[in-house]
């Protein structure tokens, strides 16, 4: 059933992004809304390398992820100087600036017409045109992401970043270089968002600035909040629910005259209700 395989692929990609966002927001308390921009940079990086240079898939993806990491390193300097609501706002500003760069830097990104016919990946000779192989690739990378973040958050390093989430001043008093940790968390989170973006670009084979505007950042945040702050399993469940439910709504046979708007209203209600009943989300342990 290609439809279900495609949904599984989109869920896996969304899960990688959600887990990395949870690492930044849920574990370390950095309320960044610019995660979709790094997802977009990873997508554009990989897509442009694949279409414009002769690079094959694996180097293009790795290079795309590297570029995302570099941009994140630069962006983290201004963004991480702030906290809580002002950090949220500056990350929104950053996301919008990145989007308008994608839109207007026509010579590089071909502007609003996006990047077309991105070749399907070829790894060690197997061409991944067949969806099932692509799903295997996504699941392998998802499992890898889970292992990496599980290892980090269960180690003393994880305790330190959770401490930073609770109270930065106290952590400084115990000798932890708080800004160093926050920068490395922000950049690592962005790298995995770039990875998810690269996978998305080579699967859907066409990307344009529209898919990386503000709303995907918000959807990623909903995935993490719904799933649960500070719980890797929770953010995967959140990612699957947010990716799959709207597609299932297509079967609900709602008269499409208001199906579209009601979809969005459901998101609004989810957000509001969560903040009221379970700010820490389904499986989370930490209330934002």
């Amino acid at each position: 059933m290609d439809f279900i395989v495609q949904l599984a692929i989109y869920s896996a990609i969304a899960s990688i992004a959600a887990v990395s966002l949870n690492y930044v927001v849920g574990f370390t308390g950095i309320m960044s809304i610019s995660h979709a921009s790094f997802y977009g940079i990873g997508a554009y990086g990989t897509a442009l390398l694949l279409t414009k240079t002769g690079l094959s898939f694996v180097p293009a993806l790795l290079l795309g992820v590297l570029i995302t990491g570099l941009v994140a390193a630069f962006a983290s300097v201004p963004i991480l100087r702030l906290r809580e609501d002002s950090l949220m706002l500056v990350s929104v500003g950053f996301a919008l600036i990145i989007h308008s760069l994608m839109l207007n830097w026509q010579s590089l990104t071909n502007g609003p017409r996006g990047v077309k016919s991105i070749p399907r990946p070829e790894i060690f000779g197997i061409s991944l045109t067949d969806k099932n192989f692509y799903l295997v690739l996504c699941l392998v990378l998802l499992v890898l992401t889970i292992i990496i973040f599980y290892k980090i958050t269960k180690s003393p390093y994880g305790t330190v970043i959770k401490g930073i989430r609770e109270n930065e001043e106290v952590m400084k008093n115990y000798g932890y270089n708080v800004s160093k940790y926050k920068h490395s968390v922000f950049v690592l989170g962005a790298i995995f968002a770039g990875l998810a973006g690269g996978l998305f670009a080579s699967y859907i084979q066409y990307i344009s600035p529209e898919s990386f505007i503000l709303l995907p950042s918000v959807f990623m945040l909903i995935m993490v909040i719904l799933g649960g702050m500070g719980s890797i399993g929770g953010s995967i469940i959140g990612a699957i629910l947010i990716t799959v439910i709207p597609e299932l709504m297509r079967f609900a046979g709602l008269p499409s005259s208001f199906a579209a708007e009601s979809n969005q209203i459901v998101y609004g209600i989810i957000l509001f209700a969560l903040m009221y009943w379970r700010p820490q989300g389904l499986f989370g342990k930490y209330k934002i």
Partner: protein
Amino acid sequence: MFQVLVNGIIVGGIYALITIGFNLIYSAVRFYHLAYGAVGILGAYLTYQIQKFIFETQGGGLITGFLFGLLISSIVTGMLGILIWKFLYRPLRKNGASNVSMIVASFGLLIILQNLIGLIFGQSAKTIRLSEVTTQGYEFLSASITKNQILILIVTLVSVFVFELFLHRTKIGTAIRAVGQNSQLAAVVGVKTEKVIYITFFIASFLSVLASSLIALEISLKPTYGLMLILKVIVASIIGGIGSMRGALVGGLMLGVAENFGAYYFGSQWQDTVAFGLLVIFLLVRPQGLFKK
């Protein structure tokens, strides 16, 4: 060149009007009421509906229809503002929600309101107009201003002036500022904070309808304008100093002028980048904005 400045000031005037309401709410309840943009647009749709009703069925003039519509919808939306606080936000605050989760909840409310407007009034654009014919503007000093723009400028200046008086001269005004500074302290001194917050939400929603209806004269009405407006308001409010009235006025004007000059020199596709670039610069250099310590 002068024309660009004029455009900037007029658009800035509208941003200022809405930001005043937004800052008022922030100073009373200390969080970003993101759904505020959608509340204003909902009010503007009401004005449109009432004007259409008066113009088409009661045979009243366009302008009387507009003013009458404006009055009714401002009051109705003002009530709605109070209900939103009473039944949606207050329970959240009582539940011990942090600022960040209040912002996330208010964003959820923005999405709900915006799509409800889409459902009720439909997706296609609606226009509010004051005259049958598109009248050419008045020329002075090589800049032309349309009638609508003059009306907007007058209403903005009047409401800012009235508002400053209200806030600093009347008892309720000082009460609102007291609650803003420190609500526990205000309560101890005997200020009925609950009542004051109701009044604040009423006035702010009233102002947002006023401003959104004025904007509708210029750019017609679409359900998605709520998000667009609130993003501009946040930038203006941060530049001016979150929560300060004078800051709202200056922040709004600065944003309007910066956007227009950005559009003039870099091209209009860079307009948003200029606005948000300004936001990022202010958040880094002077997070408390121009008018706050």
